[in-house]
């Protein structure tokens, strides 16, 4: 409790020293530079050479393969029937292998059919259904992923996308059923409210970081839970709770505030995915073309140097968190204005905030990378639903797969060692942002 207990007297010099070292190689290493060698050998040769090198694409793909292998093992060990065939594997090894293969391949086939394309589907609606489901799950993840990625580039680790999305969903939901506005305007107001709700929740850790130095990781984690308890409390208040229900559910959002569907009334894909692509473009522009984006990246790679160069680090930190919060809030607003749900419930935001962290890492904290990563995660979610209902494999497997993929891509050295990849020409993909509390 006292200072005397907390360690050596010379800790402060060590602190600044290490800060300088870690901040220098932080964000710059997070971007793999492009794979252009100075003089070009034949295209085919280049392709083969890069295929088995530890570049971003190969590492990501192999991480996916590794994750699916581990997932398959989990499926086998948790299936008593298949496990029984391993009891006599020395007598009849074919049985065990056949049973395992049948179980795992059927599950993954259903994952694919639910996410991309079902060859047996009849009619346009049925054929589009998997894609529509994938896009429905993708849209909010793009926003939370962008939120985390944007903050990451500015040197802040936003664990609070979950809380910001929660405040976004609250604001969007309230605007959706409390305000009597004409169609069109109502939707705009509700979406805007979601962004503001998230921005407020991002502002708090931002200003605390800038003014008092309080670490944003700690504060955003804490604010996540504050937001959830606020949501749980709010839902059962008069005027918010659905008067016809006794359980914790709010009134439904008016039709005038709901995002329009893209492929007709039978498919769930909604305009949120278009907003998501626009947001990706906007964030890419902000980061790479605008003054703020330049300041943000400068502060992210070296705050001390940025301050010397005349950039207001405090202001940048606050702005980063406000923007990140607004993005996460937009993601949250889709959970109630889109087709996933029309009313607030305690679990309405699902896991989009935490998944957003994984999406941002998988997308190598670059806007378009985030979009692709969100697409993969959305596909896994959509496919996981089908896998659960057709193969009886719990949806939780998708969480395992997502976590494993990110673990593997976060440690490219491990993937490289497993597959004996050659070192890539360019800097190895690195998602690490080594920084203390």
């Amino acid at each position, binding site marked *: 409790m006292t200072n005397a207990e907390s360690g050596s007297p010379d*800790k402060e010099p060590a602190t600044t020293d290490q800060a300088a070292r870690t901040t220098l190689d932080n964000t710059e290493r997070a971007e793999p530079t492009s794979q252009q060698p100075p003089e070009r050998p034949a295209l085919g040769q280049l392709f083969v050479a890069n295929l088995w090198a530890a570049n971003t694409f190969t590492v990501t793909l192999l991480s996916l393969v590794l994750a699916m292998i581990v997932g398959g093992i989990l499926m086998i060990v948790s299936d008593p029937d298949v496990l029984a065939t391993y009891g006599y594997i020395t007598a009849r090894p074919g049985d065990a292998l056949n049973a395992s293969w049948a179980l795992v391949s059927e599950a993954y086939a259903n994952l694919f059919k639910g996410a991309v394309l079902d060859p047996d589907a009849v009619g346009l609606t049925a054929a589009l259904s998997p894609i529509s489901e994938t896009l429905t799950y993708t849209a909010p993840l793009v926003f939370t992923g962008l939120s985390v990625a944007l903050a990451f580039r500015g040197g802040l680790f936003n664990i609070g996308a979950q809380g910001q999305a929660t405040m976004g969903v609250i604001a969007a939901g309230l605007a959706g059923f409390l305000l009597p506005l004409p169609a069109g305007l109502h939707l705009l107001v509700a979406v805007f409210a979601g962004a503001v709700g998230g921005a407020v929740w991002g502002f708090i850790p931002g200003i605390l970081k800038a003014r008092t130095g*309080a670490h944003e990781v700690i504060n955003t984690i804490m604010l996540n839970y504050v937001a959830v308890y606020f949501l749980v409390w709010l839902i059962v208040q008069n005027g918010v709770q659905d008067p016809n229900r006794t359980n914790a559910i709010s009134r439904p959002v008016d039709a005038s505030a709901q995002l329009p569907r893209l492929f007709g009334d039978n498919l769930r894909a909604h305009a949120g995915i278009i907003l998501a692509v626009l947001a990706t473009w906007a964030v890419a522009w902000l980061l790479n073309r605008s003054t703020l984006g330049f300041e943000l990246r400068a502060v992210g790679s070296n705050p001390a140097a940025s301050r010397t160069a005349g950039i207001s680090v405090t202001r940048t930190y606050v702005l980063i968190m406000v923007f990140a919060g607004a993005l996460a809030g937009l993601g949250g607003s889709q959970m109630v204005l889109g087709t996933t749900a029309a009313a607030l419930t305690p679990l309405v935001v699902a896991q989009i905030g935490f998944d957003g962290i994984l999406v941002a890492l998988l997308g190598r904290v670059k806007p378009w990378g985030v979009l692709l990563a969100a697409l993969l995660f959305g596909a896994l979610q959509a496919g996981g639903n089908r896998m659960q209902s057709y193969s009886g494999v719990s949806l939780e497997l998708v969480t395992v797969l997502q976590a494993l993929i990110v673990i593997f891509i976060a440690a490219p050295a491990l993937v490289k060692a497993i597959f004996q990849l050659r070192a890539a020409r360019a800097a190895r993909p690195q998602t690490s942002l080594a920084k203390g509390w």
Partner: protein
Amino acid sequence: MSTMAVDDVAVAPVNEGFWTRARKAGLVLTALGLLAVLLFPALAASEPARFTLSEDASGAALKINGTVGAALFGAVALAAGVAILAGLPKRWFTLVLGVGLVGFVVSFLCWQVSTAPAGQNFMPLVNIVRGTFILALPLIFGSLAGVLCERSGVINVAIEGQLLMGAFSGALFGSLSGNLWVGLVAAAIGGTFISLLLAVFAIRYLVDQVVMGIVLNLLAVGITGFLYERLMQPDPAKYNSAPHFSNWEIPLLSEIPVLGPALFAGNIFLYLGLLLVLVIHIGLFRTRWGLRTRSVGEHPTAADTLGVRVLRLRYRNVLLAGAVAGIGGASYTLALFSFTKNMIGGKGFIALAALIFGRWSPTGALLAALFFGFADQLATYLSAINSAIPSQFLAMLPYLATILAVAGLVGRVRAPAADGKPYIKG
């Protein structure tokens, strides 16, 4: 605090003239005291508020009129706040602050208990104290796991996952073997498994430790949830019916009023938790291992120069932390409940909050865990007496308190200097 933060502080935190940290705390306490004196007596009913020394309404009780009690204890809080504001000698600060805060809480309780529905305006202190300890248990184990990791320089955000994995493997192997001790060992191994991943990826592959912690939490939720649905749900008798530790009463000590039944009639986890606080406290501050751990957490390069094997010590401490947290998880499945999906439900993050609020020390973490456990127990009690205070706001208390602490409003909070920074030799 973080290294970057130190550079970024707009106002130098050291010498602030009149508004020292103590005075700021005094100001907050004065405001709370004013609130208590002006508001709580007005809201309280002029009914007796009884604090019984038993589990129900019977037996000896401390009794006070609600309005009088609220005013009296509010005045205590106010007086303490004013005293600190007036510039109290430093050695009295903690004591007076504590008295003031207790005064505020008691004033609040006088109001709440006196306005409870007829027949319910009593507060069974044994229940409250016992509930506080039960609810604090996973927090104590979790925050100790955090202390072990972070004192040696590895951030542990994966406490939630370690607790969950411990709870799961304790339940699974406890029911498969039908043996409590097998379950306990399995729980420790389960927690260690998550820790092993954290250690290997953070120390060997230099993955960002916060990232790794978050991902490991999701992994633990996924694996336990998946196996729960595949194994435990279809066949709970085989996979999810672990035996439970019974309560062990310590003779004599369990006769002490209020504290006795709460502290000396608990299960093995209660004793183990309190013992671990003591052991880790002594270990950290009185042994060679502790000195090395702290030096590796503050300045690994210096420790390395003196011959301490930095990475090996970090591996060992992180794995140890996993075992501690795993046992903490088993305090659910081997004593109270059977396993359910995601049953830790954020307790790991409150444990993290307790670790930070307790300033990375075992005893501080214990006190913080008890405070958070009390808030949790109070929320349950208040909703049982139909209080006007929504239980959700009390549930927010640990998180808000941590934010205030980290922002420097309640006192100085500083992490070990090398916390979260991978050590690369050379």
